[in-house]
């Protein structure tokens, strides 16, 4: 995927903080990210790294107490600080979301047809009958067999994978430019996950939807993403095209994550997993240091004195925030390939 054309979604220096009893917690710190038309960008990180907060802040879904600064532009329109009534027109129509647990996102007392239809009635002012017909088409689009019958099912009559397909159908009902998928397969079994990832890929190919997929699963990223953003403790630490990231991770955290994941062909008897020592830091603002310094094998005084900027580290469109980026050491994946 090239990003030559103007990005659909342009995030610049997005920061989110929450006031708490013990002071302000900085959840997201100056995140910048572009999403081109028809591109699938994967955002990966561990719990608490700020990836979900970033996603929620795009369309202003965070609670009122959140302090959001920076810029989120959708086709040039500024969304940070936009009026609620303007945001409401954007949500669902321009930017749609799917979340981890489809059952909690669906209304248990309405048929799935009514729920998909509601989106169309509200945003597209369709008649109830037209909305229902469109709902059947959408269910077919996301791979639900015998959609004409399924449209009258209630959520509890569907399996977890089917429910997630319904959520996707609802999300793409108005043909949004951007689909934000926050851990869309985490609650699903692997055999079902493969199908959902296929649906997301299909939507991109057929409708040209841009997808921001948020996950902690490096396998999912390897499967579906064109480009990858790695987050750690509220900051983007590395950004690269997917092949380059897995083959040549430059930030020590990315490299650590890759070698901490079990790979096919590795067994404890012959091959130990590399651990990342220490703990994820508490999210308090520490602007004058690399947030990974305490766990990093290469950290020195400089890392503790100044936060490294995201800089070009060679390779096309490959940036990392590290004072001492890895010399491209072969990863476990490459070893296994030999």
């Amino acid at each position: 995927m090239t990003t030559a054309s103007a990005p659909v979604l342009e995030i610049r220096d997005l920061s989110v903080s929450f006031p708490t009893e013990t002071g302000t917690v900085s959840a997201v710190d100056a995140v910048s990210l572009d999403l081109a038309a028809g591109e699938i960008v994967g955002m990966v990180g561990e719990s608490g790294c700020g990836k979900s907060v970033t996603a929620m802040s795009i369309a202003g879904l965070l609670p009122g107490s959140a302090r959001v600064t920076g810029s989120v532009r959708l086709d040039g329109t500024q969304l940070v600080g936009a009026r609620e009534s303007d945001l409401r027109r954007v949500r669902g129509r321009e930017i749609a979301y799917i979340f981890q647990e489809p059952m909690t996102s669906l209304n248990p007392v309405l048929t799935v047809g009514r729920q998909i239809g509601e989106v169309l009635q509200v945003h597209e002012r369709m008649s109830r009958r037209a909305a229902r017909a469109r709902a059947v088409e959408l269910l077919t689009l996301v791979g639900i067999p015998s959609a004409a019958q399924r449209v009258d099912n209630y959520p509890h009559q569907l399996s977890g994978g089917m429910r997630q397909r319904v959520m996707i159908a609802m999300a793409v009902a108005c043909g949004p430019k951007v689909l934000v998928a926050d851990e869309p397969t985490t609650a699903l079994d692997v055999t079902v996950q493969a199908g959902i990832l296929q649906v997301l890929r299909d939507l991109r190919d057929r409708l040209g939807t841009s997808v921001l997929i948020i996950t902690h699963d490096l396998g999912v990223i390897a499967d579906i993403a064109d480009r990858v953003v790695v987050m750690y403790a509220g900051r983007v630490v590395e950004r690269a095209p997917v092949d380059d990231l897995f083959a040549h991770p430059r930030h020590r955290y990315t490299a650590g994550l890759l070698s901490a994941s079990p790979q096919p062909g590795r067994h404890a008897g012959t091959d130990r997993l590399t651990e990342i020592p220490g703990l994820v830091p508490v999210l308090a603002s520490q602007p004058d240091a690399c947030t990974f310094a305490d766990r990093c094998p290469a950290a020195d005084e400089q890392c503790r004195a100044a936060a490294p900027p995201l800089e070009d580290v060679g390779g096309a469109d490959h940036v990392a925030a590290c004072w001492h980026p890895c010399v491209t050491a072969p990863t476990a994946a490459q070893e296994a390939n030999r």
Partner: protein
Amino acid sequence: MTPHPNALEIADLVMHFGPVRAVDGVSLTIPRGRVTALVGESGSGKSTVGRCVVRLVEPTAGTVRIAGTDVTHLSRRRLRPHRGAVSIVFQDPAASLDPRMLVGEIVAEPLRLAGKRISRRERDARVAPQLERVGLRAEVARRYPHELSGGQRQRVSIARALISEPMLLIADEPTSALDVSVQASVLNLLADLQRDIGFACLFITHDLSAVEYLADDIAVMYLGQLVETGSRERIFARPAHPYTQALLSAAPVADPVRQRHRQPVLLGDDLPSALDPPSGCRFRTRCPLAFDRCATEVPEQTMIGDGMAACHLVQSDGTGPDVRTADPSEVLS
């Protein structure tokens, strides 16, 4: 008397919860010192098997033998002497550690339950090396679980499970609630402890990469029954059952170059219910290769090496069709 060679023998285990047939005829043997992974998706009944083995539930039918002793229907009192032989580690350490107890009390609790009256000093002396063994400092004994991270809490659960020197450890999704970087350290710890202490382990998980890392043998479960068993090497190199093949092909590998050359077998999403499992082969409703006989006849277990596969299409020499190379149009339908 020579010790019984098998740490665990499960024969025709059945566990029904009312109309729900969670486990329906599972037989499995784990020799002393071996790690067997029980793999399956949610609702396959794999955790229920673990709960039957530690007798958190009393099986509907079948037998569970720990080192040759039938513990299936022992009363609570008669079970107590055997409790020390089997321990369990659960998925979510935040939920399985009592928040009001100190870590030291938690780790020592199996000793107390075994009926041994021990002084506080002796308890501390027993707990300290346990904590050290799982990579925690002895001071942690005076902390509460909420003061620890997820990975540290899971280490506490492991220390508690191992203080009675069990012969068999049930590890039920021990790393699923943990972050990737923490998972690695817990998997390494389990591997090290298993190698050093030599307990047998029933490793219950849906995470195939963790299975390959930790297990000697693998048992694959689908809707309350085992569909395939075998050595790790054989199952990963030559899976025989269509479900095992689909499962292995569906799990993405963290390597974009390789992952994009793989063609996952897409099974239908509609998992049948354990309330009313399909007739014949239970996998037939999602199996791309199912034919008439699968609906009418329960497949026999065909022996392959020292394992088996329960599929009509698997030959006695272990060969059979591969859903991963079958015509994709058929597979998708």
